[in-house]
């Protein structure tokens, strides 16, 4: 293989990747540029960049003035981060137990915990609502956090137990001889070693929670617990839609997920390279 062929091959690969990136990012880019244009400019030429004449922050103004946008934002963040935390924590713990301890019914238990991947949780909406009413949790963050945690667990258990099985037995045994408790082994040895898998699960779990409209609408529609997605609905009317505000809200909603994603993907890459040089 000559060096030239290598360059050709790698530039072809890069061309494909760049094309894909543009394709994937273009809608986001459109949302962001249009959020900074006047209403007329949005409709006249949706693909144009904002110019001096068409530049208008009226959308952002509306969003920040109308409704409790900051509060919605905060609600979304609390619900997403808390659900993510619990799904990852309990998922990893269950995965560790399934991978590490031999007990009767281990395999069945693993299957049972992973079964939820195939069953849409929305099928149980009525029962969930009844349960939340009985527990007096409607219109609280906990209603959403509990549902999302339950929804995130099956995938977390499924993916993480595979990775937990790969954590060296010798390492765990060395720690037991050194007198570390099972909890310390889990937190200080197993968890850091499956960090790339944790990041993957986190990304997969996070996005649907952040974007969800269904459960906030049913379980926590109250003003104080509204999430961003639900809060933005006021701009989408049956007859009139305030596009400036919708686009501005979407633009603002993108940033936290991007930040969270960047954090996780860094972990992901760090985990991969660390495994490679070990």
């Amino acid at each position, binding site marked *: 293989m000559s060096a030239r062929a290598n360059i050709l091959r790698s530039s072809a690969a890069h061309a494909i990747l760049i094309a894909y990136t543009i394709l994937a990012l273009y809608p986001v880019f459109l949302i962001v540029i249009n959020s900074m244009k006047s209403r007329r400019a949005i409709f006249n030429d949706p693909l144009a960049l904002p110019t001096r004449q068409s530049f208008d922050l009226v959308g952002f103004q509306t969003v920040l003035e109308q409704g409790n946008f900051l509060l919605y934002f905060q609600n979304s963040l609390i619900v997403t981060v808390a659900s993510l935390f619990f799904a990852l924590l309990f998922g990893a713990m269950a995965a560790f137990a399934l991978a590490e301890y031999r007990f009767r019914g281990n395999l069945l238990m693993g299957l049972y915990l992973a079964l939820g991947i195939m069953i849409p949780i929305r099928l149980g909406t009525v029962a969930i609502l009844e349960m939340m009413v009985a527990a007096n949790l409607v219109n609280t963050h906990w209603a959403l956090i509990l549902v999302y945690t339950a929804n995130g667990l099956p995938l977390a258990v499924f993916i993480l137990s595979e990775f937990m099985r790969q954590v060296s037995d*010798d390492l765990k045994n*060395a*720690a*037991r*001889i*050194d*007198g*570390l408790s099972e909890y310390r082994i889990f937190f*200080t040895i197993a968890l850091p070693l499956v960090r790339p898998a944790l990041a993957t699960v986190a990304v997969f779990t996070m996005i649907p929670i952040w974007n969800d409209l269904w459960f906030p609408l049913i379980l926590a529609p109250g003003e104080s617990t509204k999430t961003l997605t639900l809060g933005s609905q006021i701009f989408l009317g049956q007859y009139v839609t305030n596009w400036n505000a919708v686009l501005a809200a979407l633009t603002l909603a993108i940033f936290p997920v991007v930040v969270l994603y960047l954090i996780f993907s860094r972990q992901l890459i760090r985990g991969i390279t660390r495994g490679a040089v*070990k």
Partner: protein
Amino acid sequence: MGNLTLNKVCKSFGPVDVIRDVDLEVKDGEFCVFVGPSGCGKSTLLRMIAGLEDITSGDVCIDAAVVNTVPPSKREIAMVFQSYALYPHLNVRDNMGLGLKQAGQPRAEIAEKVDRAAKMLDLEKYLTRRPGELSGGQRQRVAIGRAIVRKPKLFLFDEPLSNLDAALRVQTRIEIANLHRELGATMIYVTHDQVEAMTLADRIVVLRDGRIEQVGAPMELYNNPANEFVAGFIGSPKMNFLNAPALGQPGRSLGIRPEHLTLSRDGGLIEGRVSHVEHLGGETLIYLRADPHGLITVRLFGEHAASVDDRAFVTPDMARAFHFGDDGLRMAA
């Protein structure tokens, strides 16, 4: 003190019996090596002694106290693993000191013990490095250091050298032998390397299918194997098993070591054809095909010319041959 007694120890994984009725006594300061084919239960037995694996039945005693239910960290043992098993997030110093820290020893004392072990193992330069920044040999020395600082009654080694290259293996083997002399501690060492077993052991335990086949000093096993399995397992290259009836000898097979055969071109007891020759410099191994005995290995000292398909005769030194009966056991000569 570090006496270990195993009393009718058994282990089953579900319906599979992995360790069956193992009785063993290891005296204080002894270097005891477990050998056996892959899958015979060496590691499992070692893990049972360490307390990492539950015992199905029987007793494990350390210094006359039954420790069946004592957790690993309270058994005053230390273990060195084949895969080093160093904590990737801790530097060398913390790796070696973690056990003592968990036991609640004062910081200054831990530092002193770690320094002493590091000096012993020539690791002083690396104390602040992470395991990822060390070579394989250095990592294994850190693992050994982690064992030393605990001052255990019992050292357990599970194939500690098999991830190292040949030169490093010899060097580390000598270090372990020196360590045993210096510390005078009881050591139990699992390996399937002939040379490690023969050179390190005070006593070798030969295991097969979870049972002890024979226990004895290396030369005792070499000169006086109890059965065909032990005879074939101890010694390298492997002992030849000739067809005894064809030679007019009692029993099923006649065991003779490759070094106790003489080769001649002109005549001898068994005629065969050379099928392969290995020149090792100091010695020459000649493989001979001879029916009905199969492949016979002859070990000659020095250089010998021989080429494939040559006709040759071998004669066993009958005084050093072993007779094995139909049950595989050694028959009285």
